[in-house]
């Protein structure tokens, strides 16, 4: 089992979800995060005082997948999330020892 983690631009979420769904990925876990990187934040001004906002909002997606599917899944995310502009994000794959479905106690491949 593997875990694919993707950090993407928020407005790409819908496309990524749709692309994954057509591929057959039916489950994932999503969270709001903030990114820090080449893409710079911006400046806000309140009563004449400037505030540098360094972090930019991102969406983080976690997908548990069978080892064999991992390359495909990562590729799909990369393709769907790409705008070609700085700040598009990262996708990484990491190893998972085991997975359990809470509802049934099913394990590993059967759990996802």
């Amino acid at each position, binding site marked *: 089992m593997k875990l694919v983690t993707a950090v993407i631009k928020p407005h790409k979420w819908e496309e990524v979800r749709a692309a994954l769904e057509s591929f057959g990925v039916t489950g994932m876990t999503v969270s709001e995060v903030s990114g820090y990187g080449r893409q710079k934040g911006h400046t806000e001004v309140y009563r004449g*005082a400037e505030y540098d906002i360094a972090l930019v909002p991102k969406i983080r997606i976690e997908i548990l997948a069978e080892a064999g599917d991992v390359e495909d899944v990562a590729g799909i995310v990369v393709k769907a999330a790409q705008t070609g502009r700085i700040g598009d994000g990262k996708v990484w794959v990491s190893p998972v020892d085991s997975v359990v479905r809470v509802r049934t106690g099913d394990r590993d491949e059967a759990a996802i």
Partner: protein
Amino acid sequence: MDTGDTAWVLTSAALVLLMTPGLALFYGGMVRAKSVLNMMMMSFGALAVIGVLWVVYGYSIAFGNDVGGGLLGDPSEFFGLQGLMSDKALVFTIPALAFVGFQAVFAIITVALISGAIADRARFGPWLLFAGIWATVVYFPVAHWVFSFDGGTAPVGGWIANKLAAIDFAGGTAVHINAGAAGLALAIVLGKRVGWRRDPMRPHNLPLVMIGAGLLWFGWFGFNAGSALGANSVAAVAWINTLAATAAATLGWLLVEKRRDGHPTSLGAASGVVAGLVAITPACSAVSPMGALLVGFGAGILCALAVGLKYRFGIDDSLDVVGVHLVGGLFGTIVIGLLATSSAPAGVDGLLYGGGFDQLWRQTVGALAVLLYSFVLTLIIGTAISKTIGFRIQDEDEVAGIDFTEHSETAYDFVARAGGAGVLGGKPSATVRVDAEARGANA
């Protein structure tokens, strides 16, 4: 001068003033969190621009002596409100400036109402420009048509009030049809928001909508009952009819939702209140309390059905200025021709009270005249601004959020709560860098 009448009109003027911030909240809560500030700024901006223009020449165009055909008051007569500070300057039983103030806030709220049609996508500068031009060529004249009675502030007033004798007690035509038609035109000029019908554009803060609805409701008693221009039984009739209509309209809207969508919603309740207020505005002096229940109930049902039409016509009237203000205003104005009763202060009988079709066609003509004038003029003004300096923000700015791109602000930062220094959270990690010296110097 009557101090009681004056007290009531001064109070009413303050109540109506509050409606504009109230509207800002009502509208602001309905948009997404990334555009709430811009939404509110359109109302506050209208207040600023129209507040100034009204003092300089707006009042005079609306209430100066007619300069031709009941279409326009003399802009020079009360230029800069000259001569009105004297305690001799009265309008009926109240100081002239109390009347000026009361009418000022009508002008302001009317312009602010329009902004609901163009949520999330209008550049702020052009909006202010639009507000000023629109008030000058649309609202001020139309107010003259409808609100300027012969022998009131000047010997000769406007054509709808005097020649046509349509009944519009507190502004069904001048305010709601006017703003609704303008909203429709402007929504067409600016076009749909990026992602309309695809992305979820649901209200980001319904309690804010409810605060706004509450303040609108409260202020509207000044709007309607204050239009009696005195503390008398006419005001009392308007007051009670306003309550009756809003209560019934809320029930009407919720009923439609329950039947159609399965659940009555809080946005529906707030919308029903406003629909009832809109519809009873022109009619509150002309119908009985039982009549007001009907007006309200009808408006609640009608507007609840009307807000879906924009999807059918493909017009992104974002916050339903048409569905609520145009439809509600038309209904309220025209229904007078049916439900007016001579036992009410306006003293006219409508069709159902045996008055025949007379009042009905007067109401219809008045309503359509304002509708057409406002729609056409707004199309022209809006298009002119669009084609010259541009009216809409860039698509990518719309996606990023107009609050940030037009106002360099974000509405909320809830995170600094327990941590150190507002470190994180959507808008995080700000390193404040205040170059006051530099800025002070160049300022």
